[in-house]
């Protein structure tokens, strides 16, 4: 029986082991043959014989189980090895398109203001003179109303030159308090490296009953907003002029390329102009029939943000569906 142990251990495959199992443990196997001898053993020795045979059997079974497990493990290992493939070849399958960078920024901006409980409002692209100019304190003869910049339609309507008419429409259809943004395409007759006849703006407007909000409120929200978009930047307000706000300011961030040291992008000033804002002019409130309210407004060009954030050199390249550009946002 001693060499049976050897036999089990020497099995090198599950098949060999199965053969040896039948040989040893099978119905006609060696152990059965040994147990068969029991009937010829004198009764006095029977008990002893059976006991030692059982011990042997248990030992052999243990060795067998052990060998079986290790052989199974070895076989599995072989199978696994045979299944080895080069996963790295499945890199870069390019199975995804990409969001347009302008829409990506627009989405990001909308997320911010919706989180601050601003509503999103929209208005038509084809506008009339009243909503686009007149109601925004830009009377017909106003110098800031540059006729050359506006696309006119043959029936006297025009393509909106900014998203500000949505302010007017919203104020005329709702009552204060108002807290809204209006994202959308706007149109100006201009075509060069930094101007395209169509681009996108987001307009913001807050109106409260009574003397509640003022320039200080504007400072808080725009500073917070710009840091949300551009990260840890400094924000600077410069007095400026817009017909529909008073006081008005332009807002700069410290240059994100040179961190304020001065570079080509910021024309060596260390600052980048990113948006315009102000306290709503009383003439605007008058035009929409609001009384005893206070409010502020701001507006920004989304393409400008996209160009700064993604270092896009030519504005025009954003409008041709050029996959060489778009696939970089995959």
């Amino acid at each position, binding site marked *: 029986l001693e060499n049976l142990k050897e036999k089990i251990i020497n099995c090198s495959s599950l098949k060999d082991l199965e053969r040896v199992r039948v040989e040893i443990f099978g119905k006609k196997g060696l152990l059965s043959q040994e147990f068969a001898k029991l009937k010829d053993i004198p009764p006095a020795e029977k008990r002893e014989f059976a006991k030692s045979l059982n011990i042997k059997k248990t030992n052999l079974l243990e060795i067998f189980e052990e060998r079986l497990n290790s052989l199974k493990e070895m076989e599995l290992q072989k199978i696994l090895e045979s299944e080895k493939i080069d996963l790295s*070849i*499945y890199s870069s*399958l*390019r*199975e*995804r*398109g*990409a*969001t347009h960078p302008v829409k990506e920024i627009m989405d990001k901006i909308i997320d911010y203001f*919706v989180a601050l409980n*601003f509503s*999103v*409002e929209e208005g038509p*692209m*084809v506008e009339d003179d009243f909503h686009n100019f007149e109601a925004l304190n830009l009377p017909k*003869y*106003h*110098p*800031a109303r540059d006729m050359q910049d506006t*696309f*006119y*339609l*043959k*029936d006297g309507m025009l393509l909106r030159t900014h998203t500000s008419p949505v302010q007017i429409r919203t104020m005329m259809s709702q009552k204060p*308090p108002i*807290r809204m943004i209006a994202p959308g*395409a706007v*149109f100006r007759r*201009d075509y060069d490296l930094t101007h395209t*006849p*169509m681009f996108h703006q987001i307009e913001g407007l*807050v109106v409260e009953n009574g*003397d*509640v*909000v*003022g*320039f*200080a*409120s504007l*400072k*808080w*929200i725009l*500073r917070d907003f710009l840091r949300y978009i551009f990260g840890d930047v400094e924000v600077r*307000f*410069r*007095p*400026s*002029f817009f017909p529909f706000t*008073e*006081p008005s*300011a332009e807002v700069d961030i410290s240059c994100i390329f040179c961190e304020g040291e001065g570079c080509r992008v910021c024309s060596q000033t260390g600052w980048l102009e990113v948006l315009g804002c102000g*306290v709503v002019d*009383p003439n605007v409130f008058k035009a929409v029939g609001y009384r005893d309210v206070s409010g502020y407004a701001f507006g920004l060009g989304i393409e400008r943000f996209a160009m700064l954030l993604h270092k896009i050199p030519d504005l025009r390249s*954003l409008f*041709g*569906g*050029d*996959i*060489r550009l*778009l696939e970089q946002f995959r």
Partner: protein
Amino acid sequence: MIVTKGWLEEFIDLSDITTEKLCQVFNSIGLEVDSLKEIKFPDKVVVGEVLRCEKHPEADRLNVCQVHIGNGDVKQIVCGAGNVVDARFVIVALEGAVLPEIDMTIEAVKLRGVDSFGMICATGELGLPKIEDGIAILDSSIGKLVAGKELNEYKTLCDSVIEIELTANRGDCLSVYGVARDLSAYFNRPLKSFEYKPKKFMVQGIARTLSVRSTGTFKNSKLLFNIIEVGNIKASFLTKFRVALIGKYVSDDLEVNLRCVIHSTGVILRAYDFDRLKRGGKRVSIELNSNNGEIVEVKSDGDTISYVGIYSNNFFLATQKSKKILLEASYTTPDAILKAVHRDSFDLDDFYYLTSRGTNSDLNIGFLALYKCCDQFSSCLYGELPIRIEGTFTKKVVNVDIKKLNSIIGMSVDRKRINSILNRLGFRTHGSNSQDVFGAVVPAWRHDIENVQDVAEEIMRVVGIDTIPPKPLSLIETNRLNPTIAKYRAVRDLRDRAIGRDFFEAITYIFSDKSKVKKYRFEMVEDELDVSNPIVDDLNTLRPTIVINLLEAVSKNVSYGKKKVSLFEVGAVFDREREEILKFSIVESGFSQESTILNRAKPQKVKFATFAQKLSAIVGEFEIKNSTPKESLFHPYQYGRVFVDGKDIGFIAKIHPKAEEYFDIGETFVAEMNLNDILPKHKNISTISNFQGVYKDLSLLIPKSSTYSSLSNALKSYKNSLMKHYFIIDLYEDSSLGDNRSVTIRFFLQSDDGTLSDGVIDESMQGILDYLQKSCGVKLR
């Protein structure tokens, strides 16, 4: 608007302010600094005194000059400029001077055999704006002239030139004086007083040769006339230098002086040739007509010589050769000018830019400044008492409520500070310091100030935006999640799905090329509603479809070597009545996959089937009905209308091979749908049966000319509560079927009440078959 620090100092003391600080202040008070240039001369460029000047023996054009360059040192310098013969003090670049502008190091040279030790310079050669034809001729306007003194030591010339970008409302800062006034408010220091008494007056009063009459209601304008008898007119070097710095240099000295004074004071001055106006007569009579009460027409002897603030007749303008000058200073409110120009078309002169933004109404300052400017190097006599015509002006008073003002700014500024700022800016304030509300009289030059918010801006920019503490949002909250936000989010999901199915998002212009839109027979915006002033020809109509723009994008991408072009756009198009309609438009061209390991770089070409499959993954369930396109852009036999919930919402099509050839692109498929119809809709679910259902297939023979949709349409009106849904699973044709083809439809049958028995199943299927045979003439295969 260009100012220099030195020029500003004629009006306000800035001796303790560095240029850097000055720029910082400009930015903070809303006068944005566009550029800053410090004027510097190269070393070894000095004042030279020309002692003698002789013709070069060998060259007519050259002069041999003996030039004193300090401490008795006299150098011989050959000079090519003709005007050196008139010069005494000149700019000399000595040996060793490096002139970067003309890339030259000055050395001793022989010119046509004559030694020359240096160069007499023109301003252009020193990197400064060009003045005079020839070399620069210095005079004492720049300071005491000392031979040998480095030009760098003349502070009047080594100035800081600051270009300010002005916003459209700040016409008051279109003069050096106006800018100085803003600084006076910021620094809280007074402006220098501007007094000047001419050296000599004319003996005769001007009324003896000039009469001025006015007719009509006369408002919004004022004018001042005087006569100058000219001995000679000269402009000083500094005047020329400054006028050149602002880019307005001309060679006429009278004009240079006028331009300098206009830029300096903001008063609009015109000089007319008195003799031309006189036309042989003895007197000049000026008539002022103000027919509409807005613009004043200045006439003389029937001729219009100017419309004040807008236009002047060049024929009558004086030059430095004029012997007698009629000098006119004028002011008209910009509102009146803008309204008049908006209503009637006038010829506009260069002053319109200034007058439409607001000029200085203190006309006397303009006259005094001109006298002072001329008197330096000219000999002129001026009339002692100018003739003044002044219309009525409405005085503007703004009621300033300090509480309101502070709420607009969001910070508390006290009454005293407000008063002092407004006074420095030229406002007159009424009421005592203890009152909360006071009246502020707006100065004429601030036509932009109308209400307390305008006043708040003045206060804010002077006290500094930086000092305002940011105030967080604290408002009454209401639910602002409106349908627009919901729709925006649904569209964002749609875009994300398209991106997930390997399409790139494009944005193209909402314009199209009319000729292409026409060529492919799209229904366009009515001509009388279309763009009247397009920017370029290929963007000359409001687009009726996004597809053409996308095909142009495909074409460009193909030309860049892209083999797989998949793009989509969510955007607006316009119908015949110019209604704005939002569309989801999508195109797939060339290959439907990228070349990768997955296809061993042999990607599948786009097919209708795979395109429709991707589309379904993006927009959800739809039905396609075979149709014939009206537009010639599409393949006549691969064009289908897309239906959702029985509504026609768009099309899916292959591009016509001719169009593919035109755009130079491979096989291309497109679809365009109404955005609103593919956004998720509210769903009500039907009860879910707990009993097992069965799938049963029917293979039917239908004529080749017939379509699957004819069967599915018929099935829609077939009533059998067990038939839950059905779909096509096979389409087969071969010669044995003759003119027919085989369609296999799979039906799902299920009852809400129990498990279906074979009998019921068979009966239902037979019912369906009978119905289709009767309604569509199909046969069981």
